[in-house]
């Protein structure tokens, strides 16, 4: 059997288990809702407004930086596995790659992209 076959079977079992846990509270927990219980929790005070629709743009920036750097980090993996064979050629290639990466990183740092205020 292909080694990914058992993985697929296991994932199906895990899916079934997670699904069971997800429907269980609906079946066993008796809901007796009232207006107060269904309010969003705000430490006992009645919610003053609907949920804050706006949040700091920094979170968005972090997500963007993550995507950029993570894609680059992913390219380290195939290189690392072959490093024993590549030796100095691999080292030179990766140093060049990291220098390019470091320039982008230094730019982001200098422009305040990593500050959290």
């Amino acid at each position, binding site marked *: 059997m292909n080694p990914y076959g058992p993985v697929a079977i296991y994932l199906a079992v895990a899916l079934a288990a997670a699904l069971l846990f997800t429907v269980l509270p609906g079946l066993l927990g008796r809901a007796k809702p009232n207006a107060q219980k269904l309010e969003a*929790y705000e430490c006992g005070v009645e919610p003053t407004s*609907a*949920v804050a629709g706006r*949040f700091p743009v920094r979170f968005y920036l972090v*997500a963007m930086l993550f995507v950029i750097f*993570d894609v680059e*980090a992913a390219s380290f993996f195939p290189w690392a596995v072959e490093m024993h064979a590549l030796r100095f050629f691999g080292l030179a290639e990766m140093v060049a790659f990291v220098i390019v990466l470091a320039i982008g990183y230094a730019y982001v740092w200098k422009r305040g992209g*990593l500050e959290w205020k």
Partner: protein
Amino acid sequence: MQAFVATLNAAPIWLIVLIKSAVLLLVVVTTFAYAMLFERKILGWMQLRPGPNRVGPWGLLQPAADAAKLILKEDLTPKTADPLIYRLAPFISLLTAFSVYAVIPFGQSSSGVWAIGNVNAGILLILAITSMGVYGISLGGWASGSKYPLLGSLRSTAQMISYELAMSLSFVGVLMLAGTTSLGGIVHAQERLWFIVPQFLGFIIYVITAVAETNRAPFDLVEAETELVAGFHTEYSGLRFGLFFIAEYVNMLTVACVATLLFFGGWNALFGLVMVPGVIWFLLKVGAFLFFYMWLRATLPRFRYDRLMAFGWKILLPFATANLIVTAIIVAFRG
């Protein structure tokens, strides 16, 4: 007995895998239950309290009591919540937490590596699956339709993705030394020397980022009670809250397993005691790591959020990259 073995040999392979999967999942869930008790006991002792000791002898039935309580609790969905995504989020968290065990090997015998699927890209699959866990948290907080959960989930999403970078970089050094992404192969490469020695910096970075990834103290900003009530799961109650809780502990167990496989030599014996089965060594190492995790929680105060982000981006990321380059230079010279 012989009849049983004969039936087992005649059973189709998919059935055997199905049974193995169900047993493994049961073991994981039971381990979660007792990891939780273990943690409450340890926290208790470290604070000179007895910890749970009322339900059953030595509190051993506490997990069962907790489970029964959570299952029978009222199932509430706030009226501001998005009902579908609100229910989907804990499901995603739990599913990703469970899924990782498809590729984690626990031991080795003459018939091969003990894992559900002994795949050649094991470590990549683990990274891929665990990184999906962030969806459960960010969607759960967003779909609650409430302020604290939204803020908690935004914080945790930013935290998890920031630390994930340094975490994947900390694996690269190990891959370089082992020359394979197969978890069995990585353990095999540590027969003479555990990778914690040549990859000590990588190990430190992995531990820090893994604690942050699982949202545990001192990086449990997501659920900073003093600021955000309970963070992303403020609106969740009963078993739906329980699912996030299970996912958190199963993720801790995953981290302990990965640390054992990558840095502590997996099932390789300690002090040359090869007569003790490898799986026992594996479990001992995982247990020791879990204890360390709980010890951290009892010892360290919580980080401040801006410092947490700065630490991840300005310290861990450069250090992880430097570790990678230094390892590459050594490997290039030694071949």
